[in-house]
């Protein structure tokens, strides 16, 4: 509780009493009354200061001439001022009281402020909950690449294997972004003069890397390993979506921790024979559901994905 430094507690309490009993006739310093209101005082002091166009401290210190001198504040006047300020009806008022600071409806709008605050807090939490997680921030991210490489064309229509470019995905933690050299294997002959491939040829001749925009990325403290997923029967499509239908690669799945854990807890929903890992069109055998067939694979290969923290965070 904030208190006035000079206020004698006994005095304060006496005046406090006066204020409520409304018996004292001598002028009192309304600031003391304000001060005993504790935490509310700074706020009303601020309002007073604004209304009287005086410095905040002059009001709080009781040195503001507006209240103390010009009004020659009496208890009654003080009651009017402060009563109005805090919405207490003035019992002595002979004529209709013109509120100085707060209207009679102050209660109402104060209440509205409180309710509004609570509502907006709920709204921001809800907003964060919806807009914050990767499901919203990540999914749909489709940056423009320096060279308009189309997976739809290469992996889809031409039917190239994912592994032709993304070598290492079966043995290493990372699915390598292919070096320029891999592109040039074909594009030295095919579309060798296409202006769209200028940057590619430049990278090839200067040995500078291509500056691809990265789409999928796990945070630094997540140590994801491609090889173990691919080799144990999680298809590319499970995490990357139907890349073979994407002219521009889109971040299709959230890659959030909850999403990862869903599959780690129920791998049968996504398992397929490891040989079909790169097949976007793969379906479970006739007459078997994904869950049913996945369960079979899970038991056969003893799939037990880690659910403890160190499985991914080290």
């Amino acid at each position, binding site marked *: 509780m904030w208190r006035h430094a000079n206020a004698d507690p006994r005095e304060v309490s006496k005046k406090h009493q006066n204020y409520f009993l409304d018996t004292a006739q001598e002028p009192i310093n309304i600031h003391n009354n304000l001060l005993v209101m504790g935490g509310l005082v700074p706020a009303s002091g601020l309002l007073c200061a604004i209304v009287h166009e005086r410095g905040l401290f002059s009001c709080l210190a009781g040195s503001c001439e507006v209240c103390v001198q010009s009004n020659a504040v009496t208890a009654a006047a003080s009651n009017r001022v402060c009563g109005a300020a805090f919405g207490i009806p003035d019992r002595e008022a002979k004529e209709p009281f013109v509120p100085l600071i707060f209207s009679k409806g102050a209660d109402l709008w104060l209440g509205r402020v409180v309710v509004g605050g609570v509502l907006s807090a709920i709204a921001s939490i809800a907003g964060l909950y919806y807009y914050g997680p990767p499901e919203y921030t990540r999914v749909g991210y489709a940056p423009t690449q320096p060279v308009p490489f189309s997976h739809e064309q290469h992996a889809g229509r031409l039917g190239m294997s994912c592994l032709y470019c993304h070598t290492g995905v079966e043995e290493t933690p*990372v699915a390598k972004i292919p070096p*320029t*050299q891999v592109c040039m294997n074909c594009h030295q002959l095919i579309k060798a003069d296409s202006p769209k491939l200028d940057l590619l040829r430049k990278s090839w001749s200067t*040995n*500078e890397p291509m*500056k691809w*925009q990265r789409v999928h990325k796990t945070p630094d403290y997540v*140590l994801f390993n491609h090889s173990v997923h691919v080799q144990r029967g999680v298809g590319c499509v499970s995490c990357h979506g139907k890349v073979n239908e994407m002219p521009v690669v889109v971040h299709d799945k959230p890659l959030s921790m909850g999403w990862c854990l869903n599959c780690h807890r129920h791998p049968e929903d996504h398992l397929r024979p490891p040989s079909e890992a790169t097949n976007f069109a793969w379906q479970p055998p006739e007459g078997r559901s994904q869950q049913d067939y996945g369960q079979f694979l899970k038991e*056969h290969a003893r799939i037990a994905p880690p659910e403890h923290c160190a499985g991914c965070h*080290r």
Partner: protein
Amino acid sequence: MKDANKAKRTIADQSAPTGVTYWRSLDELGDTPAFREWVNERFPRSMRELLDGAIDRRQFLYLMAASLGLAGLSGCRRPEIEALPYSKPPEEVIPGLPTFYATAMPRNGLAVPVLVESHEGRPTKIEGNPRHPDSEGTSDCFAQASVLDLYDPDRSRSVLHNGVPSNWAEYDTFATDHFAKARASRGRGLSILAEDIPSPALNLLRAHLKLAMSEARWFTYEPISGTNVLAGSALAFDPPGRPRYFLDRAAIVLALDSDFLGLEDEGGRQLRGFSAARQVKSATDSMNRLYAVESRYSLTGGMADHRFRLASSQVIAYVAALAKRVLAGTPEGETIASALAQSRLASTGRWQDSPWVNEVAADLKANAGGSLIIAGRHQPPLVHALAHAMNVALGNVDKTFELREVPPEPSSASLVELVRAIEQGQIETLLILGGNPAYNAPAELDFAGSLKQVKTTIRLGLHADETSSGATWHLPAAHYLESWGDARASDGSVLAIQPLIEPLFGGRTALEIVARLSAFETTSARELVRLAFRQHSGLKDAELDVAWQKFLHEGWREGSAYPVLKPRLQADKIAAAVAKSPPTPVPPTAESLELVFERDATVDDGRFANNGWLQELPDPITKLAWDNAVVLSPKTADAFHVSTGDVVSLDLAGRTVEVAALVLPGQADFSVSLSLGYGRTVAGRVGRGVGFNAYALRTTAAPDIAIGLKLARTGRRHPLACTQDHFTMQGRDLVRELTLEESRRLATSTEREDATKTSTDLITHPPLTGEHQWGMVIDLNKCVGCNACTIACQSENNIPIVGKDEVIRGREMHWIRIDRYFSGTADEPELVHQPVACVQCESAPCEVVCPVNATVHSDEGLNVQVYSRCIGTRYCLNNCPYKVRRFNFFNYNERPLDQLRLGPLAEKGMAETLKMQKNPDVTVRIRGVMEKCTYCVQRIERAKIGAKVEAGASGNTAVVDGTIVPACAQACPARAIVFGDISDPESRVSKLKAEPRDYALLGELNTRPRTTYLARLRNPNPNMPAAGRERA
């Protein structure tokens, strides 16, 4: 102030037309060379050169790594991250998978075979070379920490000419001209001072140098050398050679002031053999017995079954008495024995009835052929010769002891001769290759002063240090991980030194400098090594190519070791030396103390002074980090009324040094020891001004043991950062000890203490259903406390250093610490070491108190710490009975250690080069996060993933026992740490846990730790007096 204003004006006049100049320090004000050097360090020229020049694979790799890292910093919500693949990928680098290269670390006259892990072109971790017999995959703290030296941001970054930054082009212009003139005069006035590194390629160059410049002289200097060892061997044997010891075949070992398990050459290999002879599994297994005679507690003394405190200068008397007893009546030693009987070495009568002579001699003789006597580097050649004579007389040759030929190296003169030549004005140009003689030369030579008399000094060094300060040219040297080269291991086999990375700061190797000096046909170090390889392998054409590839792949050439000699004992020569030898000096007293100079267990001879890992590593015996101190016995300390932390003044023949004192039980009375390598004045940010310079007292006449030291109190105190101030276990059986007899009884009895009690379990853990259940056993009977595990862990797990202040507050970050306890009396204590890391309790007290679930249990029994959840309440640390959790009180990775308390005002950011050292598989932790040993979970997961990838669609996912080796176990030269699956009864760890010696640390708390210990065994000689200790 007046001067400062004047200087300010001067500078303003010169450089600032605006008239107002601000400066940040008086150095900048004066624009001193030191300041220019500082600026130069901040704005490395080499980086610019690197960007301008052609970019080859390794440079590209590390630039790429840096740009990826920087790309991640921009933006907040969705940083646009660029993925930069290679344009044309190199063949052997697979992103995401580490590659390993075999190379060698040259050090103190030998080279150590190592295997280096490299991530996308960045060397990150050093292991021993598993294919070389010197290492067999193990290493020591120096090899482990040397990777940090590579990335030291304080390394010299450019050529300096008279202290002013210059560049290689300018130096080359100078050198071409200068050395052409020198060649014209056959090298008159030219000298080279080098470290003692036996390298075939360098010898090739030296042979050429001899032809091209016959007048040029070559000097070598190593502050810590094996001179006494070789001189002793030359005295004892014909032909002389390098003695090598095989501890695995020795039942009785006597160490004469020799730390053969620690700081002597080949400490690692000897330790491996020693621990192999301590494998006690059944009631019939036997164990070696170690007697140690020494002045200061060493790692060897700590392992001894019987230890004898004896001032180092008195060891010769003891050896004489013992040799007289052992050699008497033997055909080889009779002449020596009779010479000893007449000499004044052991005539004091003190040894007449000593059990240390009678019983030890009897024990040695009873185990003839299986005993071993090893003399230490400190001891004079005669002690070595007598030890050799005893080994011969006991029939140990070719069993526990062998002699390897040491082919004559090209002749080199000593530092003393160099200084004499300088004083006589014979030397105009001095080329100093490595080393740091201005700091570590014997005090009476005043080498730094002599250097000033040389017209041109050229200095090649990793750091611009004391020696560079006075040099005309300072040239940045390439680190061994950046160099091509070759060197010989302890057995003489040739090791390959191959670069893992292009020189970070444009350094050159000694080979490249010398090749330019003598205008050799090639200046490429790789070519030189290959030429030398052709020479020493004797191969040609296709065979040569195959052998060369194998040489680089394996890291050494098999069959290149020096031959084993058939030594012939020169009894007459030893007898003559005995007769000529002066009497043993009188035992030291309070008026005339003995001072022993020790090689430091953490910074070696000072070469690792700027290595933060090693500076913060506590000395294995004193547990002192960030300092050295003069070690006194309690009795000596009482005599001088000195306690630990008092600054005392040491006066040796008029040379004075003020040093902090440290009182340590077990030190010989009135013998004090001081380790070398501290008190560097021109080192980097880590090593400058740390500790006290012992070289200032060291002279050519008494480089190891000096007599006549005077000690006086100064009344001042110096804060010492000891990581363990208490000496006893306070009644708890933290370390358990048994005698061999007791352990045999235990092995035959059926009683077993249940290490994992099953009484009420207050703490629950998730069901331990994982396929594997990880556990560890640490054999205290093998562990000598050498610290290799601590540094291996630091290097593997990205553990920061915290600085001396923080260590004093007990905030060191080592995930595995080595506790040291004394037992027995303060005068005759026994010592035990115990490595303690997180013991991975099944019922972990830390887990129940974490309010945010940041420390949880895995189904494989790991106590997992989740950094991203931790909010730093430190409840877990308080609730851990083992005190193994470590808290990041500050952002040790991002802030300079001297500015930790400045908060956001401190400089921020880790040096680019230090980032390159980090293990990419382990998170770098920030402020406010708890951390601890993870059993190297990154290695566990790597192995599990490997097994699963291998298994594919089949269900065979089990990890084979021995696949997973945590960093500590991999480095351990004693092989004391074994890790594995305790759910598999056939695994090594399960079998060790089934041994009767197995116990859980603080098992009575029912924490059910996964790491258990095997009790230490002692094998006392029943005829010896119990060394200050009551035995059950």
